[in-house]
């Protein structure tokens, strides 16, 4: 016999009624400590208590890496088309429009050209907020043009990946972006211009199987999920639970596919050291 009776069964908030929590002043770390958001930002969005790397986007990475947050953005206004008139639970172009409104981003990657501790650098950085950081025509084209810029101006290229993989709504077009970006990287490789690929949480699918794994240096933030197939798919394939730490940065390093893991607070300086060593 219950003490009281709930009249409504379960919690029934429809998806469209759910609200994003507004950015407050306080941040609760995974350990449960409450810290001021300014403190978090000053710590490169790494929780001071357990070094957990909070997921951030291009805006934050550019702030961290470009001197004085000064950079020139390339192809800022490029937007997605809808070549296949794709419709699932809603039409693709409506999804794109809604996502642009919500995220104030035009697609899942942004490119900036600027200086990092005085070194010229081209940085393309993915935004996971934009349809899971999925790679469609815009992502492929913007990365291709970023590499073109690197090639033309002989400036090192840094790619910061954060993506669930190829964007299904552009089907065959998305698939060919893997080819396009790899083609440009083949040219960069031939020209001998350094390409650093930074893999952040998460980097999976077609992104892992193209530009993210093609760096002269493949590096990652600690504790990121990195893989080709997603953990759920693998679990279903092998019919067993996955070992602890499977597909983490540390796991991928151990198996020889990363050059090193880097704490975000040291990212700018370590990258600078690397460029300096390549330059001298």
């Amino acid at each position, binding site marked *: 016999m219950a003490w009281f009776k709930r009249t409504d069964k379960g919690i029934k908030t429809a998806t469209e009624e759910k609200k994003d929590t507004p950015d407050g002043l306080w941040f609760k770390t995974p350990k449960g400590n409450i810290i001021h958001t300014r403190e978090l930002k000053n710590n490169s969005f790494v929780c001071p208590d357990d070094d957990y790397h909070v997921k951030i986007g291009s805006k934050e990475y550019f702030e961290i890496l470009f001197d004085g947050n000064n950079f020139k953005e390339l192809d800022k206004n490029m937007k997605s088309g809808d070549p296949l008139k794709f419709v699932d639970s809603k039409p693709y172009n409506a999804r794109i429009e809604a996502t642009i409104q919500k995220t104030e981003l035009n697609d899942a990657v942004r490119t900036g050209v600027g200086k990092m501790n005085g070194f010229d650098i081209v940085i393309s950085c993915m935004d996971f907020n934009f349809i899971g950081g999925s790679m469609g025509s815009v992502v492929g084209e913007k990365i291709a043009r970023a590499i073109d810029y690197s090639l033309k101006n002989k400036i090192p290229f840094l790619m910061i990946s954060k993506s669930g993989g190829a964007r299904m709504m552009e089907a065959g077009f998305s698939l060919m972006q893997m080819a396009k970006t790899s083609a440009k990287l*083949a040219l960069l490789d031939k020209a001998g211009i350094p390409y650093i690929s930074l893999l952040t949480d998460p980097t999976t699918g077609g992104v892992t199987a193209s530009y993210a794994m093609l760096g002269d240096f493949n590096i990652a933030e600690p504790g990121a999920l990195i893989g080709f197939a997603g953990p759920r798919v693998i679990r279903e394939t092998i019919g067993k639970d996955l070992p602890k730490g499977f597909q983490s940065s540390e796991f991928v390093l151990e198996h020889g596919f990363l050059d090193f893991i880097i704490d975000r607070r040291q990212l700018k300086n370590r990258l600078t050291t690397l460029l300096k060593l390549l330059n001298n």
Partner: protein
Amino acid sequence: MLLEFEKPIADLELKLQEMKDLAKGRNIDLSADIQSLEDKIQILKKETFQNLTRWQRVQLSRHADRPYALDYIYEITNDFIEIHGDRTVKDDKAMIGGLGDIDGRTVMFVGQQKGRNTKQRQERNFGMANPEGYRKALRLMKMAEKFGKPIVTLIDTPGAFPGLEAEERGQGEAIAKNLREMFMLKVPVICIIIGEGASGGALGIAIGDKVFMLENTWYSVISPESCSSILWRSWDYKEQAAEALKLTASDMKKNALIDGIIEEPLGGAHKDMKNMAKTLKSTILEALKELDKVKPEKRIDQRIEKFCSMGVFED
């Protein structure tokens, strides 16, 4: 094994056989009836196969009787020597390759291989290659480049294998490297989707100067089933997903994502394997003739240019 839309045709064919047997056994003249039934079958076949839905083409691409890579290779070559192993881990039996000659010209073949029965299917891992398969493919392609032999890849995979060891050995890195390296191959590269062309697993051996699809195959970023399970959260929308993905040969050609379609015999490749192989062979020879005229550096530039022009966006 018959697919749902093959059944009405098979029923009529059975009837035709009975009629022929009857005419022969009882020594009666049924030639007029036989002729009319034969005409009827032909019309039904045409109607059926010219109006296949996208999902039905996916089903045909996976037909249990469909010819696989090695079937075609043995059919179109005089000599063929299979080459094994990635020289690092093992020999991936889902990815095959070797040197063979077509009308006296040596070609390096690379392709995914499926199995015909349960035992073979397991051995071939259902045509799902591991990283060592992609590395074996690249080793063979580099060897072809060294000896100046053109490359023909035959693509037929439900995807790169999503297993635990595949992740440990760098499935993503293996495919990525193939993409980059294939762009720089100095020899002509012809890629043909002969069955299923699922995502990165297919693309990993599909960077070519000419990319063809057989008429009843599919090529996309994801299978209709997986697309259905992700976007509709159920496996039941695979037909809808197949429509949305626009994954058939004619869709892909229309969107300029492939270079050409290779026609199949009426009823599909499995209905007349010998003729299918003949068409495949003449397509390869014709493409080689065209590619031979272009200088290697130019071929590489054109290969890169072609893939770099793919994509739709507003600038």
